């Protein structure tokens, strides 16, 4: 007997979820309660357990794909036929325990007033539109006057879809440049339209939030790291024997954690509403990683209490997790400062975007050889380019310069990392 398991509404009015990870393969036996797939929704990231004992007959959707509530997720071959009775997923129409009760986008729900039983004049334009909270938020975000949108939901409610339709219909006024560009492309086959992944949406939102809220200012420096290179060469092999990759980054994390202790405004955040600055007395350093699905920033917790070896070991571990797509939301929480080492791929200087609401981000460029003047002699130096972006609302120029001097000092004379 084949049982089709549809993606249930697990969060009071969800419309869709994104597949984060599959836990089963086709042909695999599962028991009731075994995790099938991890889904990310507007409300939570959670494993969806199997409702049946049986064998997986089909899986729908790849990691990163969006599944709508009510669409098939897996098919399970189950043993008995009578088990099919009463086992269809139930339809939720707004049950709740101290949560939202409003249901979005379902035109079959009785509206609060008497008119619900009579056919509703959906086309009527109201002075103040009835709308679901999701739709209202979306309209605000897209800068649409919700009162001018025609609602097609229950009792003429404006739904998310209505906003979407209205937005795409009126995008000539919203974004003329893009529209023009697209209309010039006659041949639709020459472009490819791809749905954004959840992670891409999150990146986009965070980048815009940072650029809108923080006053970015960037300073560039060159750290001379010949000593550091020697030390790394000396220990690289023995670390590798223990499965730890000793990178420059481990030293930079240590140097940054130490420097932050002396310059706390770079380890803070601003709360404009409360009119206060929150100084953090813990040092959780985020590491920007170029993961297969996009940029993620796992965090090394309490970096100030860790040795360089422990930091190197954690970096090895988080990179591994990121490559395998196993980084959890917990791994990325509570960062206080971020480091991005684009130089390991390429580039000397960049203007990194602050991981808002943090106060600063340090970029590390490609290490290269360069002639430098030392005691009136020209010698060959090893340069690590540094780009430090700060939120100028919090950190003044002087403090920023003192911080980067401090970091450079540690990198130039790595022994001081231990002695200081």
């Amino acid at each position: 007997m084949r049982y089709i398991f549809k993606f249930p509404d697990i969060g009071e009015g969800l419309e869709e979820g994104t597949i984060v990870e599959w836990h089963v393969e086709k042909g695999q036996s599962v028991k009731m309660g075994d995790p099938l797939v991890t889904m990310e929704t507007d409300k939570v990231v959670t494993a969806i357990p199997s409702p049946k004992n049986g064998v997986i007959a089909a899986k729908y959707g790849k990691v990163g794909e969006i599944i709508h509530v009510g669409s098939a997720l897996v098919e399970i071959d189950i043993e008995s036929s009578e088990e099919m009775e009463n086992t269809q997923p139930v339809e939720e129409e707004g049950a709740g325990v101290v949560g939202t009760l409003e249901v979005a986008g379902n035109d079959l729900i009785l509206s609060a007033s008497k008119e619900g039983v009579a056919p509703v004049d959906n086309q009527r334009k109201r002075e103040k539109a009835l709308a679901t909270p999701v739709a209202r938020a979306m309209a605000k975000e897209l800068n649409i006057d919700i009162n001018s949108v025609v609602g097609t939901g229950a009792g003429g409610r404006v739904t998310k879809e209505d906003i979407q339709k209205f937005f795409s219909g009126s995008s000539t006024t919203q974004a003329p440049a893009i529209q023009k560009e697209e209309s010039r492309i006659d041949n639709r086959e020459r472009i490819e339209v791809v749905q954004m992944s959840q992670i891409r949406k999150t990146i986009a939102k965070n980048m815009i939030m940072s650029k809108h809220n923080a006053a970015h200012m960037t300073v560039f420096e060159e750290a001379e790291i010949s000593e550091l290179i020697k030390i790394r060469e000396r220990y690289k092999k023995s670390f590798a024997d223990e499965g730890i990759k000793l990178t420059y980054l481990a030293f930079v994390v240590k140097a940054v954690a130490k420097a932050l202790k002396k310059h706390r405004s770079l380890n803070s955040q601003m709360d404009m509403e409360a009119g206060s600055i929150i100084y953090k007395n813990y040092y959780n350093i985020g590491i920007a990683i170029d993961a297969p699905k996009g940029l993620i920033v796992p965090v090394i917790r309490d970096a100030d209490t860790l040795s360089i070896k422990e930091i190197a070991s954690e970096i090895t571990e988080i990179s591994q997790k990121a490559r395998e797509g196993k980084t959890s939301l917990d791994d990325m929480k509570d960062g206080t400062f971020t480091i991005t080492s684009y130089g390991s791929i390429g580039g000397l200087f960049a203007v990194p975007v602050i991981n808002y609401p943090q106060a600063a981000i340090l970029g590390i460029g490609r290490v290269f050889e360069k002639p430098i003047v030392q005691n009136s002699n020209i010698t060959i130096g090893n340069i690590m380019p540094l780009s430090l972006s700060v939120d100028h609302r919090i950190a003044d120029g002087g403090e920023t310069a003192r911080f980067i001097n401090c970091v450079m000092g540690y990198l130039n004379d790595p022994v001081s990392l231990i002695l200081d």
Partner: protein
Amino acid sequence: MFTEYSVLENKLFQIIDDNGKVVNPSYMPSLSDSEVLKVYKQMLFARTADLQTVSYQRQGRIFTYPPNYGQEAISAAVGLRIRENDWLVPAFREMGAMLSKGVTLKELFMYFMGYEDGSAFKGANRVLPISVPIASQLVHASGIGYAINQTKEDSIVYAFVGDGGTSEGDFHEAINFAGVWKVPVIFIIQNNQYGISTPTRMQTASESLAIKAVAYGVKGIKVDGNDLFAMIKAIDESIEVCKKGEGPVLIEAITYRKGAHTTSDDPTKYRTKEEEMKWDKKDPMKRLMAYLQERGLWSTNEEEAILPQYKEEVDRQFIEAENYGPYPNEDVFKYMYSQMPDDLKDQLNEYERFLKWKESKLSNKK
């Protein structure tokens, strides 16, 4: 106890520490080993059922569910002491106490599937339905307490509320009334640190929730709610107060909601992993397990042997609830009055017309 652990000094009443060691022997309630083990097993069953219920919700088989995970000791202590003729007035996170009173898991599952019959509690005497409107149940509790004083029955009311509920007007009205009329109600605040995402420090400017007892002129105490023995002792003393006609009592039970507020909530958005790890050390079952192991009363092997039976029993009751049959339309309107008044009859008719209309719309779509 109420004097020694004065709420004015913000003292916390505790009997065992985080490692299950008895640190306050003079207050240890007298319980036989087998009684302690029995309570532990009830907590274990409740926790198993709770975790499985979250799983059923994730399978799309019940609606929203508020987990009990981490708060089992409070319900277990009440469950141990509550009698047939006592009243249980729950909020919505007291599964263990409800089971002890004779409510079945099947009924609780039916409640979360939307059945009115899930609140009928056929085998349980004097249990009010689960109360979703925050703190409204406390007013009912005070009213029941007042009735007990009139009838002079030997009965006590156990009323539950969360930390968030203490900010509601009903909380004030209920306790104020209870204090004036000296009604036999034990109010238990399950302070699990969050009202959805609002931390307790944002809930009140008071030093504690227990200290509010002073303003109402009633006895109050702040108890380690993850310490089964402290909870039992606090309840025992509160029973004595009520029996002497000096009730009510306000107990603030300090605990931690290890799960989400409900299945629609993501606690990682408002609390840190460090905080969760800190509270893990105070887990009520972990502490009681240490106590039992120390005395050779229970082992992880025995626990592993019994868990599959518990899980099977939970599944069995769940499937029974799932096969309960269709939901009768009139149930929505039926239970407020012994005879359905005309306006409700009109609404029922209207609802049935609507369902027909909905049906026709659906078949048109096909």
